[in-house]
């Protein structure tokens, strides 16, 4: 059973379709990546999960129940476009936002002080928000997102605006929260962090879901049968060593005289067989299959969808190169 489930969600705005029968399932205690180019419909979906807007069709389930307003207190949301009241004091503001999420005053104060200590921002309690740098404000925002121990956390581009040290701090906290039982949905363009954190993903493009599943499975599914070999003591020329049904993609020699060879096959490869063939002809220092990165899958999928759309002559939309 999924902790959060969207079933055939459709959302229309006056002049365009934002989501077209999108279904996703987020398993409990997983980190789920919601991917897609700008304008694909991610924010629309996130707003529906947060009940900021309502879907025109389809159903949302939260922990097996129909999503209702009272679930809002169990959701923590860090939007991409975020801000705080500039003229308000940090502590006062954090207290206010925590109380809006249903935390009572005493608990809110106690827990906020704990978090502020952890993030080493205790000294800012009495400061006005406008006096703080953007990175500092982001930390406060992260704290108020998680202060009510939400069961579901939604992060929209959580790492933007942080320096590398704080990115690590936030990553650790996200993993920590998952340890403690939270389910995390996060939307990002940063594919490196997807590979690092996400268990599952869904790729949305032009209002439709075009791909979803566990990250490992997707990678396997899109494997290109590419291998990287590092060989030494070659008895023949490397072309003679590699079986003929492989294409040689690249070949380099290291300063120690070792050969790094990248090969690709059209068909499924039995790697044991490949090793057996090479073994008598060279010393194998390293052998590994190269799985596609999420970045490559993302670009490949989005581009092929665009091609399809062009072929079908339906809503043609150029994908901004920034995504690629």
């Amino acid at each position, binding site marked *: 059973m999924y902790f959060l489930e969207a079933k055939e969600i459709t959302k229309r*705005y*006056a002049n365009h379709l934002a989501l077209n029968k999108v279904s996703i399932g987020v398993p409990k205690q997983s980190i789920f990546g919601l991917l897609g180019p700008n304008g694909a419909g991610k924010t629309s979906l996130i*707003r529906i999960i*947060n*009940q*900021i*807007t309502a879907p025109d069709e389809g159903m949302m389930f939260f922990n097996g129940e129909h999503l209702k*307003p009272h679930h*809002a*207190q169990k*959701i923590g*949301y*860090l*939007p991409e*476009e*975020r*801000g*705080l*009241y*500039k*003229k*308000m004091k940090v502590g006062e503001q954090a207290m*206010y*936002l925590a*109380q*809006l*999420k249903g935390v009572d005053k005493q608990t809110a104060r106690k827990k906020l002080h704990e978090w502020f200590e952890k993030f080493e921002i205790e000294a800012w309690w009495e400061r006005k928000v406008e006096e703080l740098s953007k990175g500092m404000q982001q930390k406060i*925002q992260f704290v*108020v*997102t998680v202060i009510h121990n939400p069961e579901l956390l939604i992060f929209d581009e959580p790492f933007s605006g942080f320096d590398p040290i704080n990115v690590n701090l936030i990553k650790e906290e996200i993993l920590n929260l998952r340890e403690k039982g939270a389910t995390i949905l996060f939307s990002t363009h940063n594919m490196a962090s997807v590979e690092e954190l996400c268990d599952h993903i869904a790729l949305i493009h032009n209002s439709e879901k075009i791909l979803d599943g566990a990250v490992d499975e997707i990678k396997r599914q899109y494997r290109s049968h590419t291998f990287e070999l590092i060989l030494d003591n070659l008895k023949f020329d490397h072309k003679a060593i590699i079986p003929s049904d492989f294409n040689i993609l690249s070949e380099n020699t290291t300063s120690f005289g070792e050969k790094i060879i990248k090969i690709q096959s059209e068909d499924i490869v039995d790697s044991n067989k490949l090793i057996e063939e090479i073994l008598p002809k060279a010393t194998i220092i390293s052998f590994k299959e190269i799985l596609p990165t999420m970045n490559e899958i993302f670009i490949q999928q989005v581009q092929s969808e665009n091609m399809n759309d062009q072929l079908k002559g339906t809503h043609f939309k150029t994908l901004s190169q920034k995504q690629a």
Partner: protein
Amino acid sequence: MNKTMLILQREYLTRVKKKSFIIMTFLGPLLMASLMIVPVVLASLSDISKKNIAVLDETNWFSEKFESGDNMIFIPVFDSFAIEKQNILEGKYDALLYIPQPELNVPNNAELFSLKQSSLTLRTYVRNVMKTEVENRKLVASGIDPRVIKESKTSINILTIRLDEDGSESKSFTEVQVILGLLTSILIYFFIFLFGSQVMRGVIEEKTSRIIEVIVSSVRPFQLMMGKITGIALVGLTQFFLWIILTLGIYGLFVALFGSEVMNAQQAAASGSFLNQTISEEQTLTSQSIAQVFEVIHSIDFGVIIFGFLFYFIAGYLLYAALFAAIGSAVDNEADTQQFMLPVSLPLILGIVVSNFVVNNPDGSIAFWLSMFPLTSPVLMMVRLPFGVPYWELALSMTLLVIGFLFTTWLAAKIYRTGILMYGKKVNYKEVWKWLRY
């Protein structure tokens, strides 16, 4: 509803704690109180202490006519002018009034000597006494009894009486009603604009600082809007009541501290102890008018006016605040509000402009219709109210205002919930119309 209370609390507290609010709260009453106090202070400043005035009257016409009052004591002196002048320098008297023997037969000159600038009251009094005496003597010389002249003076006083439908009479004195009507309607006008635009700025602030998305993921947009509107209404009411209390407080404190002097000054002004000779019909007329004003004030139904004022004050604000909130949600910054502000503020401005005509004809058809139309009724019904408005008209106007308020709130909520999430788009009326139909 607990969350609406939280929002209300924040909106209220952040504004009430602002320096500008605190400064305004104290500055307003100080200004008001000083308007009441300064005239009294000025009056009391003019010679409260007793003054001895030596009168050297070479003509012998007037010495008997000057009457000593509480503040001034006239002492006839008979030494030569030079000696008396010396006495002043030595401080024997506060002032010396020297009336020299005229070169012709009628005295029309007097000289007032004192070390300090002599007060206006003294000069006016001396002039009046001398003038009356000289005139009387001239009349007698021409064979006319001064009493005849006095008795022939007439003043006309028109009493306006309003006949109610049931035949009962109520004295009306339009000036009172005009002032009351215009004052209350202008107060409502300012309140709506001042605090309505605060609602608008608050919404824009939330939108531009991008905190809005976090908040609407915790509460419904409608709760946020209503919390903001009522929170700011309470700020306005707090300021209003603080102004009244502080104004009265400052005035009361002043009276308590300087009470006796104020009383003296007022007595001095009112008693006319040394002006009684010159009391003319004009004064009797004024005192008559004052009595009439009081009578009219008593005849005005203050219960209805206070109730009406509070009702139109609050309901009018609520109606407009919802519209202001909708405007705030539709734009990205304050500069873009212009195109939407105009149609919203037009009815209010129209109300104030028309109010000047309505006071002349408070029961006319323009007055009637504009005091029914919810966008203008908060201003115009207040103008009409002191003149007396049939209860059914009042009830109808209030009902329409409540309906209008519910309608604008409904309308505003629809614009608001879409507008607050809309960024970087130049919004026009066509766009807003689309939002309404989502």
